[in-house]
Every structure is written in structure tokens, then in C-alpha cells.
């Protein structure tokens, strides 16, 4: 029964994609309609009217778009239902689909781990499909056909869901690549821009390399097992060395998709150029699917995790988290910034996952469950708030036609609803208490603080350092999102566009973000609900759950024991309301002083404050740029144009700032150059002279004859 829900989710997303293909077939549909009417004149009148109504020239595209998104939304709802029911029943459902290789049908397994990610995807997809119809209205059908967008969106979602269902390596890879390829087409959707094409290419290339690494990882397992089903792979008797090789390959493969430093470079290129609701899905849930892969591979298939892998994950996670947020901070393109921030958040998840591995191998399954919980919970939260922020970015782009933060400003008054929703997103991602981001980060800290129980001195000192780096990450994240929110919504309008902006006309567009924002807050206040769900995942995977021995149950969060640490968001909320309410009431009790006097902003007496005097992005982040100067490749120039007889007066000053990723120059460009050089060298063998070619055959023949005898 539950599996039917899951299949429904997959099929509905396929159906939404196929339905979108009808966009260009209006004339055929009209003909078909005519045919039906002619053939069955006594067809029910209302049905005829309905057909006639919906096939109207102007109405048809709008209706079709809505229908596509309704199907997609239904798929999301079914995914949520399926996920919830499998999590609640703790069932493990096995099935087979008669596709694939003759001796290897697609094996399906739907268990708590898949269910949890189903839930995540379901929520994200539902939110996106609420948001989608009005967002895609902005696209001109001739240049950006909806058929393409809708088709690949459907395939993309279906691919993600199928990855979660896969129970053999072959189906897993097919679903995985379906997801990658479909999202590639979405990234390349607005392909007029060369930068977008480049981003799409980079994305697909890295996806391909990653997929190959994953195949190889499966290959390592498969060469010790008989068959490619996960059941067979699970039982593969691997030596530690081979297990570590498989782990390394899986880490490379899944890490490329997750966006671990230094294989993250596609992320900030590809996410910004896709349509916003797609970026939301890519950043919000596709990365999570990769995380799922990593978890499935390491904890489930490999089974015996080794603490050394945990150390690798902790180190890489920490670097990604720090690097991600530092790079995010320097961006002025909103979606690019959000993409880098995904690298950060992924880093946190990976780090916590690493902690879980360390604890698991050191014989503390309960603490491992805690780390696992923190990682999954953060993944869930990230899915919510990153989705929210990307959708918000989409709204901003829709309304201001801008993505450059420096060209916005003052939107809080023009777009009050959006600004509030975006604020919720910013607060969650900055991990402020009462919002969901904080809870998972708190859990991560708690996990790290348990390092004391370990015997290994190096681990015991490494983990707290990683935790401190995590703290730095969180603080930098807050700074970064202060910048984001402040530059976009506060202050004065920095450009013509943002001056003319206004709130979205179609309120359904806000429904998706509202859903997510409410969830962010609710989960921030009542994290227990999700934690219980994740507990069933760790029960299946690690065989342990988190102890929750606190007396008041759902009110409290006590990951290890109430004595060691506890957090009660509902009480905190009450406290805030009491304290804030009391002061609010007390200070405004006097009607005379209650009113505020508005006056011009203090301008030091010089007069004429204008928008250009405000701090902008690069000014805001200047202190960070100086402090962490070596993290980036900074190209900062101030050009002065001189005038006057002696060329001593300044006519104009322009500031030029470019921030580049180190990994390009250090890692990727050498590879590219190497391939090109090698290609040139190899190209020399084809000289164009037939005698040379004959010479090749001749020598080859002689060589082979020599070899054979």
C-alpha cells in the first residue's frame, strides 16, 4: 500500500512532465477535440463545454501550466504521504519492477531512510508547485518553451524519487543520471547566455565524472559480490583496503553532487542560472539525494564504517563549511551566494556524518545516532530554508529583474510579505534560536562535545577544533545573511529597478514560500516531531535511537541526557514573548510618548543623503576580505581618471573587485590544459600522409607478429 503511494509520486511527476509536452500540440488537441465531438455527438454536454473551454487559444497555455504544476504538486503530496507512512510504520518494503536487464529487474526498496528523503522532496516539490505557475508565466513561450521546462522538471523530480527507491546498482545509476541529465537541461534552459551554457557544461561534466566514480564504487563492491542488487552488495566480503577504496570513490562521486570542497565548483555556476524554482529544487533537495546516496553507500552497503573515513568526512566537511560561507560572503549575485551557502550547509552535514562514523566505529552507537540525527535534521532544515530563500530570490528576480544584491535595497516597504518570508529564511539559515537551523546546529555541537568519550587523543582534539570551526561558520553565516537581507530589503533603493518594484500581484506565488516559512518556524519550535521520524531512520540503519529521557517529552530536547544538555524551544518562545511583550506594553503605556516622530535621517549636517552613500556588499564585507585575504583570489583595483593641466585632479574613480575561487587555478585549469595538450600530442599521429598511415599498419603488423611468436 505504502509503495503504491511512492509509485504514485513517481508516476505523477512523470505525468506532469509528459503533460507539459502538450504545450506545442494545441492544434492537434483541437483536431482531436473536433474528432471526438463529431464521433460522439451525444457526449455529455458539460464535458464538451469543458473541452471547448480549456482549448481556447488564450486560456489553454495558462490552464496547461497550472495542470502541470498541479500534477507535480500532487506528486509532492504523495511523496510526503509515502514518506510519512513508511517512517511511522517503520516498514521495509521490497518490490521489483520488470525493467532493466533481463536477469536483473529493477529492485525497489522503500525503507525509513528513503522515506525520510521522500518526505523532504515531497515538501519541497509541493512548495515549488504552488509557486511555479505564476513564476513561469514570465517566460516568453517562443524563447523559453514551457514544454521543455515542464518536461525536464517532471523527469528531474521523478529521477530524484527513483534514486531513493533503487535497491540495485543498475537502477540506482539510471535514476541518478536521469536526475543529473534532466537538471542539466534545466540549467541550460536559458541558453542564450554563454555563461549559462558554460555553467551547464561544467555541471554535466562534473555530474558525469561523479557518476563514473559512483559506478566504480559499486563495481568494487560488485566484484566481491555476486550481482548488483543492494542485498548482494551488502553481503560482499570486503577487506578493509577495498572497503576504503570503495568509500573513497563513493565520496568522490557523491561528493561532487553534494558539493564538497574542492569538487563544489559546478554548484555556484549552475544553481544561479537555472530558473529559480529549479535552483530551489537543486539546492534544496538534489544535494540531499546525493547525501542520501552517501549515507546509503557508507552506512548501509559498506556496513562496517571505519573511523578513518569519519575523520576524512569531518575534515572535508569543515573545510567545505568554512570555504562555502567565506565564498558566499563575497558574492553579490544572490543566487550564487545561496549556492555557495549550500556548500557551507552541506559541509556541516558531512562533518556531522563524519562524527557519526567516528562514534559508530569507536563503539558508541548511541552517539553515532545523535550525529546521524544532526546530519539528517540539518539536511531537512536546509531543504526547507534554502528552498525558501531560492523561491524568494525568484520572486525578487521576477519583480525587480535583478539578481545583483547591490542593485536592490529598500524593498521591505515595497514588498512587505516577501520581505517577511525572506527574513524567516535568513534567520533560519543563520541558525538563530527559535528557528529550525539552530536546532540542527545545536545538535551538531552536542555531538562534537561528546568527543570526550573517545579513546583516541587525536580524535578528541580534532573534533572540538572542528566544532569551533563550525562556530566560526555559523557566525560568518549570520554576517553573510545580515548582508543579504540588509542590502536587499533595507536602506534606500540602490537602483531604478528596485525603486519601481512592488509586491507580487499573484498571491499564489507566495503560498509556496509561506508553507516553507511556517515549517521553518514550527520545526524550530517543535523539533521533536521530526526528530522522532529521524529516530526511526537511525534505528533501521544504526540500530540505535537517541535517548530522550527528559521528563517533559516533546517540550524538551535532551540528546544525551537532561543533565548534560537540554534545550526547550517552546519555553524559550514563551520567555521571548513574555519579556518582549512586557517591555512593549510597559514602554508604550503612555499615550503621549507612544507615538514616534519621523524626521529626516541625520546627515551630519552636509545634506543630501543618497543611496550611493550606503554601505554596499563589497563595503560590508571589506573587513572580512582583509582578515581572510588568502582564502580568495582577490583582484581589487581602483582606477582614477585624471583631468586638469597637470593631470592632478581626479575626474572619476572606479572601483573594480573580482573574487575568484582558488580551486580553478589550482585544480581544474591544470586538468583542462593537460587534456588539451595531450589531445594536441595525440593529434600529431594523424599526419594526413597516407604513407605514414601505411607505415602504422606495417609496424603494427610486425609488432603483433613479433608478439605472437
Amino acid at each position, binding site marked *: 500500500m505504502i509503495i503504491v503511494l511512492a509509485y504514485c509520486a513517481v508516476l505523477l511527476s512523470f505525468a506532469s512532465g509528459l503533460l507539459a509536452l502538450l504545450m506545442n500540440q494545441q492544434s492537434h488537441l483541437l483536431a482531436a477535440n473536433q474528432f471526438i465531438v463529431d464521433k460522439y455527438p451525444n457526449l455529455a454536454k458539460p464535458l464538451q463545454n469543458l473541452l471547448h473551454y480549456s482549448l481556447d487559444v488564450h486560456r489553454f497555455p495558462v490552464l496547461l501550466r497550472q495542470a502541470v504544476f498541479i500534477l507535480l504538486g500532487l506528486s509532492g503530496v504523495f511523496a510526503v504521504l509515502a514518506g510519512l507512512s513508511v517512517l511511522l510504520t517503520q516498514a521495509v518494503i521490497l518490490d521489483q519492477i520488470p525493467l532493466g536487464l533481463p536477469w536483473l529487474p529493477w529492485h525497489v526498496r522503500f525503507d525509513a531512510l528513503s522515506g525520510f528523503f521522500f518526505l523532504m522532496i515531497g515538501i519541497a516539490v509541493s512548495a515549488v508547485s504552488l509557486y511555479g505557475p505564476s513564476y513561469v508565466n514570465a517566460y516568453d513561450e517562443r524563447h523559453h518553451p514551457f514544454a521543455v521546462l515542464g518536461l525536464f522538471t517532471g523527469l528531474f523530480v521523478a529521477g530524484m524519487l527513483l534514486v531513493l527507491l533503487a535497491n540495485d546498482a543498475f537502477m540506482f545509476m539510471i535514476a541518478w543520471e536521469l536526475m543529473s541529465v534532466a537538471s542539466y537541461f534545466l540549467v541550460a534552459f536559458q541558453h542564450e547566455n554563454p555563461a549559462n551554457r558554460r555553467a551547464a557544461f561544467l555541471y554535466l561534466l562534473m555530474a558525469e565524472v561523479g557518476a563514473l566514480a559512483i559506478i566504480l564504487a559499486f563495481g568494487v563492491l560488485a566484484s566481491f559480490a555476486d550481482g548488483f542488487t543492494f542485498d548482494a552488495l551488502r553481503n560482499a566480503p570486503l577487506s578493509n583496503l577495498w572497503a576504503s577504496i570503495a568509500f573513497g570513490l563513493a565520496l568522490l562521486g557523491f561528493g561532487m553532487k553534494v558539493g564538497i570542497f574542492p569538487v563544489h565548483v559546478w554548484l555556484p555556476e549552475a544553481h544561479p542560472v537555472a530558473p529559480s524554482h529549479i535552483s530551489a529544487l537543486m539546492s534544496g533537495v538534489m544535494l540531499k539525494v546525493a547525501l542520501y546516496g552517501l549515507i546509503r553507500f557508507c552506512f548501509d552497503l559498506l556496513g562496517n564504517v571505519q573511523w578513518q573515513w569519519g575523520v576524512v568526512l569531518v575534515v572535508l566537511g569543515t573545510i567545505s563549511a568554512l570555504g562555502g560561507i567565506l565564498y558566499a560572503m563575497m558574492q553579490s549575485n544572490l543566487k550564487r551566494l545561496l549556492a555557495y551557502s549550500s556548500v557551507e550547509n552541506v559541509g556541516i552535514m558531512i562533518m556531522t556524518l563524519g562524527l557519526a562514523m567516528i562514534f559508530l566505529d569507536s563503539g558508541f552507537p548511541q552517539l553515532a545516532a545523535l550525529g546521524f540525527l544532526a546530519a539528517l535534521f540539518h539536511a531537512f532544515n536546509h531543504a526547507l530554508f534554502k528552498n525558501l530563500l531560492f523561491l524568494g530570490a525568484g520572486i525578487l528576480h521576477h519583480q525587480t529583474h535583478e539578481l545583483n544584491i547591490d542593485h536592490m535595497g529598500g524593498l521591505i516597504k515595497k514588498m512587505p510579505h516577501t520581505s517577511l518570508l525572506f527574513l524567516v529564511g535568513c534567520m533560519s539559515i543563520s541558525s538563530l534560536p527559535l528557528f529550525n537551523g539552530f536546532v540542527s546546529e545545536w545538535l551538531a555541537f552536542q555531538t562534537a562535545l561528546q568527543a570526550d568519550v573517545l579513546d583516541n587523543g587525536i580524535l578528541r582534539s580534532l573534533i572540538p577544533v572542528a566544532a569551533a570551526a563550525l562556530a566560526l561558520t555559523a557566525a560568518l553565516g549570520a554576517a553573510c545573511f545580515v548582508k543579504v537581507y540588509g542590502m536587499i530589503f533595507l536602506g534606500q533603493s540602490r537602483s531604478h529597478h528596485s525603486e519601481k518594484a512592488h509586491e507580487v500581484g499573484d498571491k499564489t506565488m507566495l503560498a509556496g514560500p509561506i508553507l516553507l516559512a511556517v515549517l521553518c518556524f514550527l520545526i524550530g519550535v517543535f523539533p521533536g516531531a521530526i526528530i522522532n521520524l529521524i529516530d526511526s531512520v537511525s534505528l533501521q540503519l544504526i540500530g540505535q535511537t537517541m535517548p530522550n529521557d527528559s521528563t517533559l517529552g516533546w517540550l524538551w530536547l535532551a540528546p544525551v541526557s537532561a543533565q548534560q544538555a537540554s534545550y526547550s524551544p517552546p519555553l524559550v518562545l514563551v520567555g521571548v514573548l513574555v519579556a518582549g511583550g512586557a517591555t512593549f506594553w510597559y514602554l508604550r503605556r503612555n499615550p503621549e510618548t507612544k507615538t514616534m516622530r519621523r524626521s529626516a535621517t541625520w546627515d551630519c549636517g552636509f545634506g543630501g543623503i543618497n543611496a550611493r552613500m550606503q554601505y554596499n556588499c563589497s563595503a560590508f564585507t571589506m573587513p572580512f576580505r582583509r582578515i581572510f585575504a588568502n582564502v580568495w583570489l582577490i583582484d581589487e583595483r581602483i582606477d582614477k581618471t585624471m583631468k586638469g593641466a597637470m593631470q592632478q585632479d581626479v575626474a572619476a574613480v572606479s572601483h573594480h573587485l573580482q573574487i575568484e575561487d582558488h580551486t580553478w587555478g589550482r585544480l581544474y585549469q591544470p586538468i583542462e590544459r593537460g587534456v588539451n595538450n595531450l589531445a*594536441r600530442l595525440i*593529434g*600529431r*599521429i*594523424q*599526419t*594526413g*600522409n*597516407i*604513407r605514414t598511415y*601505411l*607505415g602504422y*599498419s*606495417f609496424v603494427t*603488423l*610486425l609488432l603483433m*607478429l*613479433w608478439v*605472437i*611468436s
Partner: protein
Amino acid sequence: MTLSTMDFYTQAILSLAALIGLTSFLMLGQGRLLRLIFIFALQGFLLTLTTALVAYSLDNPHLYISAALTLALKVIFIPWMLRKEVIKMNMHRDVQALTNKTAVMMGGASLMVFSYYVLHPIVHTTTTVMLNALAVSLSVVLLGMLLMIAHRQAVAHVVGFMSVENGLFFAAIVATNGMPMVVELGVAFDVLVAAVLFGIFFLHIRTSIDSLDVDLLNRLHEVDK
């Protein structure tokens, strides 16, 4: 087994094999096209003789057909066509000096040795005549290829190509007493068509590059210039 203990047939075959090998050598070192074509025709004639000899000694009538085909194609038709071409292109006066004649000849000689070396493993399962025939035909094949590599004229390439075929025929006839008839006919047909096509190509190449020097056919390549 010494030569004197063999019968006449074997002795004849071995002599013919030696002669055919010799013609290959001669072709390899030949700078003048007309002489090259002549030697090629000679080789074809020797092959015809061999075929006829085998047909006679085995009393295998279908080998006579094969001999006739060889005579018609390799001794008459192709040399005639090539000769016509050379005269038409006014190339018969040119002497194409091989860039490194000594090295090519030395290479040819070592190829002969190499052929024996390659066939060494099968020596215990076969007779001397077979071994020699195979070795000679292998070296004729290899020498034919070397001829193509060493010469720049398209005509020489055709000669080389056909000489490779000669080597194959020799092997087929001596070692296996001829292939099944259907194959023989098919091969002959292919050779005929190939010869016709060569003629067509000479025409095309001439109109295209106004020469038959294959080194000038070098537009399609992958080298950075």
C-alpha cells in the same frame, strides 16, 4: 631433408617461390615506374606459372581457371592500365629516387628473415615446401607494404597493393592448393573491380591535384599547423 631428395614438383615450386620473392625485391628498389610495372607483370606471370603447375600436378581443373584469371588480370589488364596511365601523365621519364634506398633494401632483407622467424613455431607441423611457400608469401605481402610506404606515386601504390595480393595468391595456391572456387571467383571479381576503381581514381586525383603524388593528398589531418 635436402633439396636433392625432393621431387621435381617441389623443386619447381621452391624455385618459383624464390623468383617471386626476388621480383618483390626488385620492385622495392625500382625507381622507374615503367620498369616497376614490368616487374609486376613478371611476378604475375610467375604466379600464373605456379598456379598452372599446381593445377597440373594435382590435376585440379578449377585451378586452371584461376591461372587464367591471374593471367588476364595481373599480367595483362592491370599492367596495361597502369602503363597507359604513366605514359599519359608523362611520368615514364621520371626517376623517383628513394630517399634511403640502402636502408629500404636492408629492411626488405630483414623482413624476409622475419617472415621465417614468425613462421618458425609451425615448423614441426608442416613440410618444408609449405613453410617456404608461406614464408615467401608473407614476405611478399610485407615487401608489398614496404613498397607502398617507400614510394610516393599512386601508380606504385597500386603495384604494391597488387603485389600484396600476389603474395596472398601464392600462399593460397601453394599451401592450400587453391581456395574453394566460390572464394577464388569472388576474390578475382574484387580484384577486377578494384582495378577499375583504381583507374577511376587516377582520373579523379589527376583532376584534383594535377599529379599522382600521394604526398600531396594531405588536406585531412589532425596536426596543428
